């Protein structure tokens, strides 16, 4: 019996969070391999060529963030709905199915050449593989659909038969959107232009669309809990933020339709709407700081508060500012497909999605581990240190990749006598070396983070004065 939890079925979130953290560690290790391959080209070649390392790095990211979103949903929906989860058993079954399918896919990437994997898994029957981020075998994609549908069914039944809050409805909307847009991954026409056009319906409409609804809902939930600010105020902010997300982000898809064969008017639609995409992120920053400043209590879990504020700020920097840097068509003409894109991708994913998952884990884990409202001060101190190590090193990685990208644009795209791609890469190697060093610091930060869960301390754990008075099921 976990006395820290309001609803016992929230406990199913725990394996999801643990799996997320484990896969996160693996993701970073492959990131470091790739980073080294940028400067030592034959590192691990031909056993793990760059394309394999990259596929593992990006796919692990997607999978562990999905684990994080699922864990977050299983944790927060019972509290919002004021009832136990519809089926904790189904949640555990889908956990194992997703973990095993994910692990097998990664093993497949590493064990055999990609073309062999495509052949083994019957890619010829319904070819969906070999497109960026959607490299999973078709059978894995079908597995993802089944798992996500079972997950949404479970969450949906809980939300719809319990108290309906703005947080849970927005979360559910985001999850349904995630499932719907993933279906476009099964559309792969022979015409590359059409392929690319609808590929973005998965990729862009996920990360600059429906995932922001999930992000907003999780952030709102945590802010309600740690600040004690009236739910009405927080929900109003949430509506306005996600309204701006959709108004700017949906047509903002057009910033990917500049140079792939689509009509010229997308240069205008894409530039104008995506230039407004920082607005919802800026509002999110205002929102988070405003709520914390207006807090009606000091929650003992200060690490969670730090993560929540950090998410808002870093998402604004990475998604907002670094997105804006290269989103206007006349700029993007020169920066498209350079290290500038990589720089933006890293800080945006870290700031928005990695950090929101770490925020909810930070808030939920002490409760899931029955430690009361917060981990010990010593453990929190360790966790905060890891926050700074990871966040600062990711900002440094972003700055270095931006430097590499600017040099690349100048040497390869703007010079009177442009250099070839490979010659350019050689001349900007110093940025990649420094990036690898920053990556190692990130890894240290990540180990620090993991170790914060194992801090042993004689000190009494932080009081649970902040807990709701009576757990419903005791």
């Amino acid at each position, binding site marked *: 019996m976990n006395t820290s939890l309001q609803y016992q079925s929230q406990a199913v979130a725990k394996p999801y969070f643990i799996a997320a953290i484990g896969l996160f560690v693996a993701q970073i290790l492959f990131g470091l391999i790739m980073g080294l*391959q940028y400067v030592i*080209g*034959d590192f691990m*070649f*031909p056993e793990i*060529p*760059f*394309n*394999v390392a*990259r*596929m593992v790095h990006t796919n692990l990211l997607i999978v562990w963030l999905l684990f994080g979103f699922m864990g977050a949903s299983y944790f927060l929906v019972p509290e919002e709905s004021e009832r136990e989860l519809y089926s904790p058993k189904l949640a555990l079954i889908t956990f194992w199915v997703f973990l095993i399918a994910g692990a097998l896919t990664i093993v497949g990437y590493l064990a055999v*050449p*990609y*073309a062999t994997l*495509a052949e083994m898994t019957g*890619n010829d029957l319904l070819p969906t*593989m*070999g*497109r*960026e981020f959607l*490299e999973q075998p078709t059978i894995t994609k079908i597995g993802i659909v089944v798992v996500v549908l079972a997950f949404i069914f479970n969450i949906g039944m809980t939300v719809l038969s319990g108290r309906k809050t*703005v947080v849970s409805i927005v979360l559910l909307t985001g999850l349904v959107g995630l499932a719907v847009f993933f279906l476009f991954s099964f559309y*792969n026409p*022979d*015409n*590359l*232009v*059409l*392929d*690319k056009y609808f590929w973005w319906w998965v990729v862009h409409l996920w990360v600059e669309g429906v995932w922001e609804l999930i992000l907003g809902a999780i952030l709102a939930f945590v802010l309600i809990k740690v600040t004690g600010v009236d739910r009405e105020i927080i*929900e*109003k*902010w949430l*509506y*306005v933020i*996600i*309204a701006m997300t*959709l*108004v700017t982000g*949906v*047509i903002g898809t057009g910033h990917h339709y500049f*140079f*792939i*064969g*689509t*009509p010229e*008017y*997308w240069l205008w*639609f894409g530039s104008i709407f995506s230039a407004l995409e920082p607005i919802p992120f800026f509002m999110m920053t205002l929102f988070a700081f405003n709520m914390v400043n207006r807090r009606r209590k000091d929650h003992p879990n200060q690490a969670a508060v730090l993560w929540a504020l950090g998410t808002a700020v870093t998402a604004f920097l990475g998604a907002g500012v670094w997105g804006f840097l290269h989103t206007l068509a006349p700029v993007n*003409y020169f920066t498209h*497909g350079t*290290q500038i894109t*990589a720089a933006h991708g890293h800080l945006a994913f870290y700031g928005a999605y990695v950090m929101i998952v770490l925020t909810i884990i930070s808030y939920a884990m002490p409760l899931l581990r029955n430690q009361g409202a917060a981990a010990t001060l010593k453990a929190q101190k360790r966790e905060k240190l890891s926050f700074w190590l990871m966040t600062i090193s990711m900002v440094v990685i972003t700055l270095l990749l931006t430097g590499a990208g600017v040099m690349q644009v100048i040497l*390869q*795209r703007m010079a009177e006598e*442009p*250099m*070839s*791609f*490979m010659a350019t890469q050689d001349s900007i190697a110093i940025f990649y070396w420094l990036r690898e060093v920053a990556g190692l610091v990130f890894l240290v930060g990540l180990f620090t983070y993991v170790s914060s869960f194992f801090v042993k301390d004689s000190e009494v754990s932080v009081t649970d004065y902040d807990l709701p008075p009576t757990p419903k099921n005791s």
Partner: protein
Amino acid sequence: MSERFTKSTARNIYLGGGVFSFLLFLGLTVDTMERLPERDNRENITAEVALGKKLWEDNNCIGCHTLLGEGAYYAPELGNVYTRFGNDKQMIKDMISSRPVEGVEGRRSMPQFNLSEEELEAMAEFLKWTSEIDTNNWPPNIEG
């Protein structure tokens, strides 16, 4: 936020703005689909080009290269490789087929994919077709 700005106002902005955005996006998509045939040179998508795209995917080429600026940034842009190689399909085929199995000491090297002559031809045809898409004049120069 001011008290007169109520939660239901906020919700209506969200719902209205969201629905309007998706409808506008769908409208633009319909229009784009009508205009694409003039730009994507689809009349030249032969069975060979389609096979080339399939091979492109089955060997995860996008895991290192960019194609029309999208993909990984580890190896050269290939949307215009046909023109960069002087409109010479043979050069593309030679480049792919000549990669050393064990790579090149200290350097980035493309893996040896062991493609057949027919497959090499299909790959080259696919890259030739790709170079003929109207991309609003991107990339800025021949280096990609």
